[in-house]
């Protein structure tokens, strides 16, 4: 597969989060309710983006085309070639219409009744959100995930798609999340469940879109084709080996690749044997008996105030 899926180009080499919305399928039967699935890929890894995907079609299309003809399932249960082949059938124009002049409308694909959208949350955005200061201003991963999901659903609604029922795969408590979604979209039915990607075909489709998109983006992070970075999970020895090998003393790792807010990174940066230069941040002193001023103040400080611009100049 030489051509890239359309979810990729906007997010390649992007420092920040980008969205992609496919065109709305032409044959969405108005007589059949539209269902939408939500899933993510790359929540746990210390490297690469976290990708959220939604996919939607009519219930009839799911029941009569997707389920009987295709092997959509939880993306982790499918092999990489199968996942890529399934997604390709959703975005790659059929050969017989490939050379037709552009008409401005959606080109025919094998799986032509499914629309989809993605948000690729970059390592920079994940880390900066989670590491805001003061801690009360943190934008944690769950909040990021919920906001991105709601923005994707809103984006599809804004395309004029009349969504009837949304199925969401979640890792957190389903009840409170479902309530939050129902509050935001009162005219849409929601089913929030753990392992929804195994239970509902339309969520499986979203799971495949998210996983293929993330895998290609992670591949693109390699500085050379032979570079081994592993799966990106902290438990993967290849990933931890890459982190150790590529750690620099001051800035540690390329921010485009690594989620600094993961404990794995913190541990490596605090380990003197890695050659890391210690950098101290204000939050390290919040629960300490010695406040930041006392810790920081070299004896050159006249008093115990933090070193800020105003007292630095006036002291």
């Amino acid at each position, binding site marked *: 597969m030489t051509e890239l899926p359309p979810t990729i180009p906007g997010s390649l080499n*992007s420092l*920040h989060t980008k969205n992609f919305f496919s065109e709305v399928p032409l044959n969405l039967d108005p007589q059949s309710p539209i269902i939408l699935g939500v899933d993510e890929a790359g929540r746990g890894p210390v490297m690469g983006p976290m990708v959220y995907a939604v996919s939607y079609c009519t219930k009839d299309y799911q029941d009569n085309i997707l389920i009987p003809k295709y092997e959509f399932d939880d993306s982790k249960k499918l092999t990489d070639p199968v996942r890529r082949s399934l997604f390709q059938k959703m975005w790659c124009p059929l050969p017989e219409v490939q050379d037709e002049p552009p008409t401005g409308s959606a080109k025919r694909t094998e799986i032509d009744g499914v629309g989809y959208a993605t948000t690729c949350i970059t390592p*920079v955005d994940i*880390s900066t959100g989670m590491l805001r200061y003061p801690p009360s*201003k943190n*934008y944690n991963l769950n909040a990021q995930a919920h906001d991105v999901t709601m923005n994707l659903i809103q984006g599809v609604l804004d395309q004029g798609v009349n969504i009837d029922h949304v199925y969401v795969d979640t890792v957190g408590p389903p009840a409170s999340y479902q309530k939050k979604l129902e509050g935001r979209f009162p005219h849409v039915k929601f089913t929030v469940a753990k392992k929804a990607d195994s239970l509902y075909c339309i969520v499986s489709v979203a799971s495949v879109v998210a996983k293929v998109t993330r895998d290609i983006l992670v591949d693109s992070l390699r500085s050379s084709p032979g570079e081994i970075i592993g799966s990106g999970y902290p438990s993967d020895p290849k990933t931890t080996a890459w982190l150790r090998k590529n750690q620099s003393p001051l800035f540690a790792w390329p921010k485009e690749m690594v989620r600094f807010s993961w404990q794995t990174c913190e541990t490596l940066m605090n380990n003197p044997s890695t050659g890391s230069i210690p*950098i*101290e941040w204000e939050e390290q002193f919040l629960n300490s008996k010695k406040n930041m001023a006392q810790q920081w103040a070299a004896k050159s400080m006249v008093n115990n105030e933090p070193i800020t611009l105003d007292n630095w100049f006036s002291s």
Partner: protein
Amino acid sequence: MTEYTAHFIPCKVRYNGATEEFVDNFHCDNEDDLTLKRKEDDSLNGEKLCVRHIRGRKIVGKKFLGSDGYQTFLVKTGTREGEDGETGQISLDTTSKIEPIAKISSMINYERDGNEERLLEELEKFQQFLDVSDVIHS
């Protein structure tokens, strides 16, 4: 004399010396408006600040002392002469010269993303200091 930009960053780096890591890091993030953030987090009402990253933390900064007749230098002062054990007060060797090492063409003061209020407060206080200084020395 070589000109530099001085960055006042909100952390303590336990290292003094040269590094080549700035070649690939600490660049100004000109696409920060694309960052995933909550609407309520935009406390600066769209004011454009200098955004950079250190180890996953975003820092936001604002230039100060960049013009208005001031010239800024990095200077080498006298060596430490003595230190009061109780107060930590240091007396400098006032007989030695203050020697400019580099010219600072631009100074940027930073705070952490989320702590922009403190950044603005600091710059406001510093401006007051300059105003008073101007009155005293005019």
